[in-house]
């Protein structure tokens, strides 16, 4: 490498800081805009009907209880039904 004075390097670093930070911020602000656009476009042209696949915040929570109860109820019903059929 050629000899570079400290002040030159520091100035270059300052420049790099300014340019770099500007780009990072601009890029992410642009991305904010694009994401808003996409969201608007999706809302307009491809809205989900009543959010059929919305994942609940506590997926295993009450659902699990219901599931277990349901299974129990259903299976009990099946057992009953089978008994009746046999008799």
């Amino acid at each position, binding site marked *: 490498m050629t000899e570079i004075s400290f002040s030159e390097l520091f100035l270059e670093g300052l420049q790099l800081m300014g340019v770099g930070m500007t780009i*990072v911020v601009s890029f992410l602000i642009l991305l904010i805009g694009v994401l808003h656009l996409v969201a608007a476009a999706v809302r307009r042209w491809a809205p989900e009907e009543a959010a059929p696949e919305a994942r609940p915040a506590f997926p295993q929570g009450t659902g699990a209880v219901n599931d277990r109860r349901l299974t129990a109820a259903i299976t009990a019903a099946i057992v009953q039904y089978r008994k009746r059929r046999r008799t």
Partner: protein
Amino acid sequence: MEKLLLLWQSTGLANFTWGQALMIGVGGVLIYLAIAKKFEPLLLLPIGFGAILCNTPVAGIGGPDGMIGMIYHVGIETGIFPLLIFMGVGALTDFGALIARPSTLLLGAAAQFGIFATLLGAIALNLIPGFDFSMADAASIAIIGGADGPTAIFLASQLSPDLLGAIAVAAYSYMALVPLIQPPIMRALTSESERQVKMEQLRHVSRLERILFPFSVLVLCVALLPSAAPLMGMLMFGNLLREAGVVDRLSRAAQNEIINVVTIMLGLAVGSKLSAEMFLNVQTLGILLLGALAFCIGTATGVVMGKIMCKVTGGKVNPLIGAAGVSAVPMAARVVNKVGLESDHHNFLLMHAMGPNVAGVIGSAVAAGVLLALVGG
């Protein structure tokens, strides 16, 4: 016996340099931190073990014909390992919180100031005798502030391979130290009432938006910052595998097989850069110092931007979540949650902090692209 002499000359004891012995100790310390302190064990344990193996005298395991040297050549010199890990990170990351509230990208942007301030700091260190960081070195050191292991390894492998060992160790160590480093800064910069700000629940994000997200990022990146395209591309490719819903086999492979296997290899290979001449010098001290600085500044600017957003939105943003903008996913978001709970026991900020947290990953990939474009030429 001539044979015994030959054998003695081939022992480690007869060939040890002090540097090697010390570096084996360093490797041991890294493994201790990984196991006993749970400091990013997935990376630091293999790095530490790699350091021990590569500092074994005579064996040359880290040399051009040694196993770990060859792994380094194939996986890190080429940049392929960090890129594959980034693909896995993409497949593991849920960008939903960011899509629901894009404005949190500002926090991810602000926190990258830690990177650029550290760059200047690295250059300033040259005033002290013994330091001689080139611009490329400074850039590689600065990226530690991105709080993103694979990004740091990728950039360092391209710009300053000699510093790679110290940079990787610093990056992962500080990521593990996030719960210690961040809270004091967060508390010092915010008022009690700011820390109690409650945020609105995030809106639902549709599957289509999740699928379009990788493309939004990618198109911008391709059009404006192609030098970030490898990193950002693999991150978004992984995320698309995850969200597409039609390639679950591949998504699982990226999240498990690939990332696990590559992590082992990457760790061992990074360890090969922990040699005495590269690590046991004052520059490493400088790197460790600058790394801490980078984390602190990034946290601070993130929080300050959070305060600004809080003001502008009339109190709809809790400034604490700005601290998550340094990335270190998901540790920083958890720290935000914890500090928030100290001020209000019912205020769970975790989901709100995930937005800036993943924004920070994108932000530091952008920063890496900028540094590659301007310094790497």
